């Protein structure tokens, strides 16, 4: 009995720190609708700052708690500054575009932290006065855990008072419900947003600072917490603080008791919980259905235009250059171009559902990985020739997308995105743990192309044919009724229904189709690398695709290709330098500010209309 009670307390203590971070994220999302990847970085900064301050002040409880509070406030200011200097410039960009900017911030903060604090993990002192353990029902429980258990609900209560007893809090709540209305009330929306960023970042910083007595402060803290924080926010219901608390407690306890029964489960527990919650409750535990669908912020996407004369010539010219390159350049350029074409097809497949369909996926790598693993397994276990796997592996990916998509298309917005991520993580954990079949994280090796295609030049042409063909096919489908129906559903679900179209079904098929094309990219990828690892279906791979699509321009058909090429080339070049992540982050931020429509979008605005066939009526 005592044992289970103590285990319960342990779960509560974990929940408390998770809640602090998640509540900040939830507040920021609720009001600004920004998917803030940098939230984990704020958490990490809070920990590093607190470590330094505690170290400097050492003595006494005041030193410790003072350090924690000052670190949290400092992080709040950093968050507000980022909102003020960066995000404020891009509120009118297409939906989700801001997440690219926060992605750039993550990269910059990672390297800045490395520069300032060094690579080694830092173990801070324990909290003065709370550095022991007390016996409860015969079990030792750390005092600091008890402090956290009190602190979590205390912060929840404080936030409740703030949101229900102050004018500012009321405005924040109103803005969470309906942003336009607050603007109409004559409230200065910009300062409201800055204030919300301050509070949200402060909470992240506080969460990080409070971890100093519990864990080593390290450079991995940002990425380790961010997915978990999003999961908590989504399970609780976006924008709901009590929901975040409930979700954090649920996850903390599931984990505390789950490892008693099935220790391996920790890898995937939270994603399983999220998938179940979202399937049963599409807006999380305490979330509310999103207000009636509004036209997305910013101007409506312009109609699709068939490429006109000049653009068509440019495309033909580009293809000709690609075809001639093996005669002009060295082998490595081909390797790089193969990578670019693979990612271009991957990004194009994501863009298909994201741009045309308005369905953002945070887990699109699942289908890339299913294609890659499908091909690898077909070769390993059935000794299938490469040619056959090129057809069958994408089908496997498509079937996977068909299965997961059935659930995903029942949701919308960030919930859809997070459910797709949950499925991707579940698939990832299966691949990661099923050593007998997938080789676990040691991956599958020796998946090289058939003899005739093993020459780099031949494989390069094969890639042009398959990936280029895939991109072209996706483009055709976008322009065909299938793609138009998808766009129609994004523009007006009501109208689509009123002209006899089963939108959900169509979105489902589109999801599967996009998964299949991602699978094609994955198949070519595995043959180009010779091996496949769970990394290929992990969150960073999904995020790469997302960044490529958004950076290229979600509202242009060429966007994903441009985005994939830009990001791959940039990373290839910049990663030769020291502190390259900071530079890459800075470049990404600069692009975001300079071209809120994405690179291809900005390009289209610069060139004459007749080039793009805007006059053509074909």
């Amino acid at each position, binding site marked *: 009995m005592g044992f289970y009670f103590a285990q319960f307390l342990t779960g509560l*203590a*974990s929940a408390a720190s998770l809640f602090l971070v998640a509540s900040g994220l939830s507040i920021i999302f609720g009001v600004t609708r920004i998917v803030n990847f940098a939230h984990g970085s704020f958490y990490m900064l809070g920990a590093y700052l607190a470590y330094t301050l505690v170290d400097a002040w050492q003595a006494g409880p005041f030193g410790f708690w003072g350090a924690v509070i000052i670190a949290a406030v400092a992080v709040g200011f950093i968050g507000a500054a980022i909102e003020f200097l960066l995000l404020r410039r891009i509120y009118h960009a297409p939906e989700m575009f801001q997440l690219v900017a926060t992605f750039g911030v993550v990269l910059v903060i990672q390297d800045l932290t490395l520069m300032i604090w060094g690579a*080694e993990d830092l173990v801070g002192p324990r909290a003065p006065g709370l550095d022991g353990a007390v016996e409860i029902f015969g079990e030792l429980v750390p005092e600091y855990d008890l402090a956290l258990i009190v602190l979590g609900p205390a912060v929840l209560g404080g936030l409740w008072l703030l949101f229900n007893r102050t004018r500012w809090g009321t405005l924040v709540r109103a803005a969470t419900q309906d942003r336009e209305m607050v603007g109409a009330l004559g409230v200065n929306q910009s300062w409201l947003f800055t204030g919300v960023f301050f509070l949200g970042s402060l909470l992240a910083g506080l969460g990080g600072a409070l971890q100093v007595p*519990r*864990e*080593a402060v390290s*450079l991995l803290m940002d990425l380790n917490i961010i997915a978990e924080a999003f999961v908590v926010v989504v399970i609780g219901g976006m924008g709901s603080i009590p929901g975040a608390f409930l979700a954090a407690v649920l996850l903390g306890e599931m984990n505390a008791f789950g490892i008693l029964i099935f220790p391996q489960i920790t890898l995937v527990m939270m994603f399983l919980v999220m998938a179940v919650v979202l399937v049963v409750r599409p807006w999380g535990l305490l979330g509310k259905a999103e207000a009636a669908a509004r036209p997305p912020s910013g101007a409506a996407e312009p109609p699709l235009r068939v490429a006109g004369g000049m653009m068509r010539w440019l495309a033909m010219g580009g293809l000709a250059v690609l075809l001639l390159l093996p005669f002009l350049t060295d082998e490595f350029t081909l390797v790089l171009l193969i990578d670019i074409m693979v990612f271009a097809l991957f990004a194009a497949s994501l863009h298909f559902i994201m741009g045309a369909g308005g369905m953002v996926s945070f887990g699109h790598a699942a289908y890339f990985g299913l294609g890659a693993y499908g091909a690898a397994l077909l070769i390993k276990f059935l000794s299938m020739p490469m040619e056959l796997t090129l057809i069958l592996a994408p089908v496997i990916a498509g079937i996977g997308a068909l299965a997961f998509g059935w659930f995903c298309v029942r949701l919308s917005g960030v919930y859809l995105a997070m459910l797709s991520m949950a499925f991707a993580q579940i698939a990832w954990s299966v691949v990661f743990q099923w050593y007998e079949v997938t080789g676990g994280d040691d*991956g599958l090796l020796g998946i090289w192309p058939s003899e005739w295609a093993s020459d780099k030049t031949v494989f390069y042409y094969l890639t042009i044919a398959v990936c280029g063909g895939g991109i072209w096919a996706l483009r055709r489908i976008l322009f065909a009724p299938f793609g138009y129906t998808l766009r129609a559903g994004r523009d007006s679900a009501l109208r689509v229904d009123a002209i006899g179209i089963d939108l959900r079904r169509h979105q489902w098929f589109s999801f599967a189709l996009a998964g299949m094309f991602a699978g094609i990219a994955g198949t070519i990828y595995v043959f180009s690398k010779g*091996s496949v690892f769970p990394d290929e279906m992990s969150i960073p791979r999904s995020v790469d695709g997302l960044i490529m699509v958004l950076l290229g321009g979600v509202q242009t058909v060429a966007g994903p290709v441009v985005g994939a090429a830009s990001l791959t080339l940039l990373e290839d070049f910049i*990663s030769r330098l020291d502190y390259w992540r900071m530079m890459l982050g800075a470049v990404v931020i600069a692009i975001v500010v300079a071209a809120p429509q994405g690179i291809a979008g900005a390009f289209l605005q610069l060139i004459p209309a007749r080039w793009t066939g805007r006059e053509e009526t074909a």
Partner: protein
Amino acid sequence: MITRRGILAGLGLTVAATMWGTAGPSLAADTIKIGEINSYTRLPAFTIPYRNGWQLAVEEINAAGGVLGKPLQIISRDDAGKPGNAVKIAEELVSKDKVVMLAGTFFSHIGLAVTDFAKQRKVMFLASEPLSDAIVWAKGNDYTFRLRPSTSMQATMLAEQAAKLPAKRWATIAPNYKYGQDAVAAFKAALKARKPDVEFVEEQWPALFKIDAGATVRAIAAAKPDAIYNVTFGGDLAKFVREGSLRGLFKGREVVSLLTGEPEYLDPLKKEAPDGWIVTGYPWYAIDTPAHKKFVAAYQAKFDDYPRTGSIVGYNTMLAIAATIRKAGSTDRDKMIAAMKGISFDSPTGNVTFRSVDHQSTMGAYVGRTAVKDGKGVMVDWVYADGANYLPNEAETRKLRPAN
């Protein structure tokens, strides 16, 4: 107000300037080019000391006239912790930079990706840091060699010590990925072989760098083991140690812990470093052979920092490469491979031989107990465990490797 186009233009210039300025290794005509890949941004705490180590070695080798009269030139690249990147970089190093061989990698899966690449492209590869047994055994190939003592070697060193303890009931805790699984499996097998009456009563598998330490510690305590075998490291280890000591898990229990004596793992814990654990590691402060003292002095002079395990591995990597090229008398791939099989050279940590049967080096590790001295963790009562004694014999090894 800065215009958007202005920013873009400025940016383009900066990027272009940086690239012309630094990218592209200088084309010194007569150097021996070695391609080097590691996860410098993903795990800087481990890989930067490693880089320092090989840089020191290269400096010394070149100062002494290089190899075959030519200086070594290392083209070093960051794979950002992604195996796909590592293969792409390997392609570039081989086809564009024309390196004579590849070296490096830290993560086992990246090491394996490059191992397989080496086999496919018939390029020589010295896996310096990855620990996976598969690199030289299950996935071993004729082109790949490995320097650092592998997972099973180090686990066996610990099992040897563990067998001397009275403990019968064992619990294990390891990060939930292949390295953790292998380390537990190897330890169990080695301990059972030496002491058949032990039983393993609890296994915990926290996700890597995401340990829920309080809950995990309690789960282990609930099984009431006599001793614990730990494989967690980095941030997980710090949390595990903290929660474990707070909750009294280590009271009256022996803990045997893989790699925990390495400065990379032990030093961040400072005064909270565990006391009395049996560990493998690298007590650089206490190894008083002249060769090692010279290495430490040179390292401290150059970097104003003390060496970590990665440093000595990086240093020995370049010693091994230089010795190989000298013995081969050429940078021809086949001659280098032939030369490296069975090659012996002296390193600051003693003589190292690359076995010709599986291309594993006999570089060993130091086994001892941890202690806290002057507010930081150290290894005491340590001995050097020569890797040669913890590797299977030739006949057994052949069974572990695919026929080439």
